[in-house]
């Protein structure tokens, strides 16, 4: 990787024939130049030696934690707001490691809660309003919400409050227990990587 310098949008970084446009850059079709599209540090990444395309990749990393936007394939942390018969609504609060400035709305549909027996899912035994879940963004969804999925072992409820008010402890992938009353409640629990 080469030395880093600060670039601003519209600065020429090279020709499209010599460098590949990475994140934060774009190629202008009419003259074949690669320009920066963000303000930040410019980095040149050398290509892996066995790839057919031997052009280095230029990328610009924004200097600000540009309030993240959920993208298909990203893991998000969301808080459940509404649970209905066939879907649950959630407010997306973090995308990856960054928190968002203003919340986005997500939906977890019945068929996306888990990977097995998807038609027998009971939404109220998987989520409750107020639960914090880790989910994967499936797609941009419709005008109102992103589509989320918890159909993996490491996805699901990360933290939940019991009816008595205590923070529950996970027992299995299906159950959590309240430390105050000992009551067991059913959730779709996320597996910790341990």
């Amino acid at each position, binding site marked *: 990787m080469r030395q880093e310098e600060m670039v*601003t*949008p*519209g600065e020429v970084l090279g020709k499209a024939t010599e460098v590949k446009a990475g994140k*934060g850059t774009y190629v202008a079709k009419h003259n074949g130049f690669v320009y920066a*599209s963000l303000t930040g540090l410019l980095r040149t990444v050398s290509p892996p030696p066995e790839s057919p395309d031997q052009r280095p990749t230029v990328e610009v990393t*924004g200097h*600000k934690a540009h309030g993240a936007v959920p993208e298909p394939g990203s893991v998000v942390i969301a808080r459940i707001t509404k649970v209905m018969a066939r879907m649950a609504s959630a407010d997306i609060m973090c995308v990856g490691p960054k928190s968002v400035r203003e919340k986005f709305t997500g939906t977890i549909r019945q068929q996306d809660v888990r990977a097995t027996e998807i038609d027998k899912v009971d939404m109220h035994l998987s989520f409750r309003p107020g639960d914090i879940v880790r989910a994967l963004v499936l797609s*941009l969804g419709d*005008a109102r919400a992103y589509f989320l999925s918890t159909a993996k072992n490491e996805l699901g409820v990360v933290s939940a409050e019991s009816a008595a008010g205590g923070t529950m402890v996970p027992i299995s992938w299906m159950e959590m227990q309240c430390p105050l009353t000992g009551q067991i409640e059913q959730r779709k629990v996320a597996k910790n990587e341990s």
Partner: protein
Amino acid sequence: MAAKPGAASTTYSPIDPTNKTRPSIFTGSDVDWLRPDSRAFQQCRPAFFRTGAVNSAAGSAYAEFGNTKVIVSVFGPRESKKAMMYSDIGRLNCNVSYTTFAAPVRGQGSDHKEFSSMLHKALEGVIIVETFPKTTVDVFALVLESGGSDLPVVVSCASLALADAGIMMYDLVASVSVSCLGKNLLIDPVLEEESYQDGSLMIACMPSRYEVTQLTVTGEWSTSKFNEAMQLCLDASAKLGEIMRSCLKEAASATQE
């Protein structure tokens, strides 16, 4: 705010294309127009920019050109309103408002309601909307003091705020306006000159790519005067673009440390 000037608060006067002394004609009078702040006709006001003025916004910028003071905040990309239809590209929403104390005569903000849509037209060609589908970027411009040439200052300041917010853009937008008073072309007019003008020309262009995003002409122009005015504007925009870039780089380096 005016305590410490920005990186390069120098003038960005363009090169005079005609290179000959003007005949001193000003309709009905023997006296040539004297600019209130004793600038040359081709001389622009010193530009001052500062980014990061508003903490709560995703990006913001403050611009001061003589007596014209503008602050722009950018929010986004954030969720579009529920009522909006699905869109696989991003949306831009602009609003320009004047404070009650902006005009020399205090009152309701001036009737520049069309500035919002003009700002939208100047910026929509510059933002790469494919990078933030389904979301909206809101740009709010507030004119604190109106000292002439308001919209060009708003456009330049807004593009700095967008760059500060980290929105992907094709280039910065620098904007300059020229007023025609009789036979004279005055660049970067003040409020008094704008009230006497016979015609005005405003250009918003991308300095690095040499592309124009918006061109606004009012009044009557002869072809040669028009060409001369356009050249002046483009030249000045290029220099203004340099000042804007150095401001961005300075601010970014400061946050790096």
